């Protein structure tokens, strides 16, 4: 399955190579891990602008009279918050309240939704959606193979979009607008995985390379750079965003991830709700907890100790280019560790001092409350 010849390629593959992308196997997709270097790319996004090929992400369209009803049933978040032109970040749960996926569900119209799903889970999600629809009046289409996606991220991006997509500037965080670009029907949303303000453009393959070049051109005055998955990972971890398959999976619940705000217990029934009600009442036994190191670079799998006793291991960890320190998150027992509490992380057989840290580690411009206002 994972031999070099069977890797999926995005429609931007050749453009990524042309720009010097160092291509790697990312869960069966050949994607750029970096271009000029992770630190440079990370800094460009934090300070100005960066461009990412995120075409491996999936698009599932849910349409019909019962579209809302289906999405309300399979999501932890309340889809009533997603009025036309808006989206919600949400968790799709199984009956044990474990995560089938974490998604953004956009409401395009009252009976038309676009769900952005993870690359590795798009087929699983599509099958899950279908299995839960039963006799509902709903059409579910996995259009992941028909669309490419570019993320344009950074504080300078709104300025870049002033002439390109002025209607997008009014979008609040998680807002979406349908727009013809280069003669094709596209979706522009104020979303991203970096913690900075910016947009994601979902477009058909036919225009995607031309669109990439156009965005590079628009970003030139701001020093825009192409970015790879390496910077995407450091940016998202600093922002405390989950990586499905690494930080969360079918066996961990939303409350355990610390994303309780994504659960709307009062919206009515949904899959896994009873388990979540119980977890909320009793408290979780483990929780995804952040920590910051004094030296060294932690990695996924490193064990975490407190007073000589192992309390967990790191799910995601890396060097934070913004904080210039090692950071990581992992499921810890007990789940209620206080920020500042002293712990130790085992790196290459040695214990390195660390402290429990509130997540996000860094709040970029995406955390501003007045985006689009």
């Amino acid at each position, binding site marked *: 399955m994972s031999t070099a010849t069977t890797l999926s390629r995005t429609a931007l593959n050749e453009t990524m190579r042309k720009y010097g992308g160092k291509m790697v196997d990312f869960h069966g997709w050949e994607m750029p*891990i*970096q271009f000029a*270097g*992770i*630190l*440079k790319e990370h800094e460009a996004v934090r300070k100005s602008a960066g461009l990412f090929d995120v075409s491996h992400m999936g698009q599932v369209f849910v349409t019909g009279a019962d579209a809302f009803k289906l999405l309300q049933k399979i999501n932890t978040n309340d889809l009533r918050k997603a009025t036309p032109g808006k989206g919600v970040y949400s968790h799709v749960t199984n009956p044990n309240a474990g995560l089938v996926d974490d998604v953004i569900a956009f409401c395009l119209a009252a009976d038309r939704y676009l769900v952005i799903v993870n690359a590795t889970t798009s087929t699983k999600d599509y099958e899950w959606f279908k299995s839960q629809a039963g006799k509902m009046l709903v059409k579910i289409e996995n259009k992941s193979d028909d669309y490419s996606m570019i993320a344009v991220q950074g504080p300078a991006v709104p300025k870049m979009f002033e002439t390109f997509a002025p209607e997008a500037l009014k979008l609040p965080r998680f807002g979406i607008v349908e727009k013809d670009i280069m003669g094709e029907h596209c979706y522009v949303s104020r979303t991203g995985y970096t913690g900075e303000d910016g947009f994601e453009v979902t477009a058909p393959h036919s225009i995607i390379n031309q669109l990439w070049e156009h965005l590079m051109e628009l970003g030139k005055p701001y020093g825009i750079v192409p970015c790879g998955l*390496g910077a995407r990972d*450091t940016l998202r971890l600093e922002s405390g965003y989950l990586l499905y398959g690494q930080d969360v999976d079918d066996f961990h619940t939303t409350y355990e991830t610390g994303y309780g705000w994504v659960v709307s217990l009062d919206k009515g029934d949904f899959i896994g709700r009873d388990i979540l009600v119980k977890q909320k009442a009793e408290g979780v036994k483990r929780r995804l907890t952040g920590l910051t190191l004094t*030296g*060294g*670079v932690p*990695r996924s799998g490193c064990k975490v100790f407190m007073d000589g006793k192992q309390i967990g291991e790191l799910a995601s960890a*890396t*060097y934070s*280019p913004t904080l210039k320190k*090692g950071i990581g998150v992992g499921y810890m027992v007990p789940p209620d560790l206080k920020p500042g509490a002293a712990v130790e992380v085992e790196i*290459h057989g040695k214990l390195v001092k660390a402290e429990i840290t509130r997540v996000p580690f860094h709040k970029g411009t995406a955390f501003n409350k007045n985006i689009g206002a």
Partner: protein
Amino acid sequence: MPKPEEVKYTKTHEWVHLGAEAAVGISDHAQHEMGDVVFVELPKVGQKLEKEKPCAVVESVKSAFDIYAPVSGEVTAVNEAVTGDPALLNQSPLDKGWLFKIKTSNPAEGETMMDWAAYQEFIKQAAH
């Protein structure tokens, strides 16, 4: 500063500038492959190293890399500058980015290592 042609190379991409005191670092090819170096852990002065055993760690944003002693001997000096500014390994792998110096206990060990031309060929082969 030694020229790339003046040092010997290992299959694990260290360079060593042979002499009574052998300076050790990582090759330009290695730093390029690692990407941005953000942390370096060096051996201690006085530490005895054994050829081909791990003795230091270089961490890039992406992952950790063990550094293997190219020759056996005792560490006589370490480059503290790189622990403070790990990017020196990217910017100047053969000069400011040197890692440590060894008083070699068996100078003959150096002879089995690759010269510049052989190392270039080795990189080319490894890429296929």
